[in-house]
């Protein structure tokens, strides 16, 4: 006990020091460590959340870019299709118009040909009729003036003259 006395150990002071330390411990724990550790945890969670979010955003952005590209390619393809189709259709129409025009031209030509044929036939008929009349007339005349050959000749000449 002499040692304790020499070291200055006094129960009252010991108790005061115990209380002091206990109060310090409690106050620091309750009002400093706990809130600080909590906020550290909170911040860590927030940061990791933020990192995760940014990663997700990046992935989404890439997806959107891919989608955009796909859409553009699709659109280009479609446009090409439309152009091709239009070209094809135009070609077809052109062909059709040409065909029609040819046909019409052919028809007109045919009609004209027929007309010409008809006219020719008519002309020939009328010529034949005229000739037969003339022949009958000539024959009659020949029959009338059979006597001399000169008249004969004359008649023929006249007939030819008439013919002319």
């Amino acid at each position, binding site marked *: 006990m002499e040692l304790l*006395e*020499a*070291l*200055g*150990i*006094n129960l*009252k*002071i*010991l108790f*005061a*020091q*115990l209380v*002091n*330390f206990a*109060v*310090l*411990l409690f*106050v*620091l*724990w309750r*009002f*400093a*460590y706990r*809130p*600080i*550790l909590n*906020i*550290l945890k*909170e*911040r860590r969670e*927030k940061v990791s959340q933020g990192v995760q979010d940014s990663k997700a955003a990046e992935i989404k952005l890439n997806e959107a870019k891919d989608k955009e590209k796909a859409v553009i390619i699709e659109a280009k393809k479609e446009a090409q299709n439309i152009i091709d189709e239009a070209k094809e259709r135009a070609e077809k129409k052109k062909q059709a118009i040409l065909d029609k025009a040819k046909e019409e031209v052919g028809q007109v030509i045919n009609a004209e040909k027929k007309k010409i044929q008809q006219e020719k036939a008519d002309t020939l008929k009328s010529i034949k009729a005229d000739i037969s009349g003339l022949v009958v007339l000539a024959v009659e005349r020949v029959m009338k003036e059979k006597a001399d050959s000169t008249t004969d000749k004359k008649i023929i000449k006249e007939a030819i003259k008439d013919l002319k």
Partner: protein
Amino acid sequence: MELNISLSPEILFQIGNFPITNTLLWSFVLSSFLILVFVIPASRLKLVPGKFQSFIEMLIEGAYDFVESIIGPGVKARRVFPLVFTMFIFALVANLAVYIPGQAAVTINRGGEAISVFRAVMSDYGMVLIMTLISVIVTQIVAIISAGPWKYLGKFINFRNPLKFFLGVMELIGETAKIVSLSFRLFGNIFAGEVLGAVVLFLAPFFVPLPFLFLGLLTAVVQAFVFAVLTLVFISMASEIETVEE
């Protein structure tokens, strides 16, 4: 000029019949200082911290990570951290307060004797003893909780065979010796530092004390750290009794 070195802290004044020693006074002052430093920024925490908040957070997070690295993460670290960190920060501030310039010159006159108002808190054996007792008692409580009371007792008192009995006695001595070794390590270092500082200052007041001051500074940090870490290790060992024995 005379050099008086007292092993016990000096009594400054008395309130009623309650003696206030210089170390007790300083332990109050330093506790208040610590409470101010930690509680004020902790009461206005922001998610985006300012400089001082960052500093406090860095300190606490670093200490917490260290505690986790020794005792393992989870609820154990969360329970033991406040005790260990308070011991560390209190001992550290108490030891570093010695280096406030001019404090040694402040004295009061009591009964015709000049008593210095300041004395390193950890050079009061009573204060160190209280911290050591807290450390050892908490260690025993942790051991009882983690091993169960019968197994805990069986560690010390075992009549199954002479060897185990002997080992039990050794264990008992070891636990008791912890009180002495833990407390006298801190007390001895700081008290010796005080005495050495006073002696050197008495012999050669200029420049010569500087290396001793630096040595003392190192001791101040290291001893505070050692005390807290030993407590942490004791508690950690006590909490792992079961897993080690089986």
